[in-house]
């Protein structure tokens, strides 16, 4: 797939246009990545409605029957349940790592294991999350799938 960038100073808003003959695997991967970049999630922060870009969300967490989206510097309370968010954003790189946390794979800096077979996720904002052992298989499966899509 060729990438052609054209600078046009007359434009009021940037836009992306995809020309295709048929949607193959490569095109699907590009669309999936682009769609997640352009998606927003709505929530409430400090009693004000806020729309956060999905790519800025580091992880969703359910606490006391409320769901929160955590970005680099603050958190937003979501209307949706964690289960619904997991389903909706599965293809955007979000995967469950415990009963109450769904993490954005693109925002993980590195993984580290300890002798108790716990996997710690070091996020790009410095936070550390712990993955439950029972979600490990699914996590690696989704991560490898994303890795293959990106190649």
């Amino acid at each position: 797939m060729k990438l052609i960038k054209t600078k046009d100073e007359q434009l009021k808003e940037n836009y992306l246009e995809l020309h295709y003959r048929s949607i193959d695997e490569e095109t699907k991967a590009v669309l999936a990545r682009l769609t997640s970049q352009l998606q927003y999630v709505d929530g409430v922060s400090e009693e004000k409605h806020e729309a956060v870009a999905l790519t800025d969300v580091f992880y969703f967490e359910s606490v006391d029957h409320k769901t929160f989206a955590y970005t680099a510097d603050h958190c937003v309370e979501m209307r949706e349940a964690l289960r619904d968010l997991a389903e909706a954003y599965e293809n955007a790189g979000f995967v469950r790592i415990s009963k109450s946390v769904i993490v954005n794979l693109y925002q993980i800096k590195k993984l580290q294991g300890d002798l108790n077979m716990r996997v710690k996720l070091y996020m790009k904002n410095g936070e550390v999350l712990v993955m439950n052992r029972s979600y490990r298989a699914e996590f690696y499966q989704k991560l490898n799938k994303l890795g293959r899509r990106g190649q």
Partner: protein
Amino acid sequence: MKLIHKHNFFAIVCVAFTIVVCTKLLAEKIAGVTDPYYTENIFTCLFFSAVITFIFAAHYYLQQFPFVPVALGQYAVTLGLIMLFVWGMGHFSETSEGAYRDMILSVTIPYLIGAAVYYITFFREIRKANRVLEQLGGTPEFDPLKQEAIIRASICTGEKVAGFKNKEDGHFTEICVIRTPKDEAEFKEKYHIEQIKVEY
């Protein structure tokens, strides 16, 4: 994910039993000994295969707890049950002098091998996952303690790629293609590198 469940339990017991008996026969052949309690020991192997599979199946329900205490606890329970069984059998038939020692070794050695394999697999999975995360994350960071910056040049095509080579396992992470001296200079400036080795 439940690895051992009611649908595959007996199949796993059968496989475990087969492996245990084959190992037993091989060990006897190598040592040149004949088992005087062959029938009793075969049924003992079957009983232990079922008990150990059951104990491992319970691991799924213990995943919320730290692994080391769970593993040690399961080992203690397994060993305790086996010792109890041998002690019980001793009331009905003759047991050899080294029965308890042999059973401890028969449990401990495979357990240690299994634990070692489990740990190695666990850390390898993490290393592989970190490589994928580097690709997903865009521009990887450079750690001079663990990596060295190199330019890989193809002898056939002459294409040069700059990246970081892991000093421990030699894994190479590609960063960018070097077409001109300017590309190389930009790469060096970005990662604060003075000299880069070229590999062919």
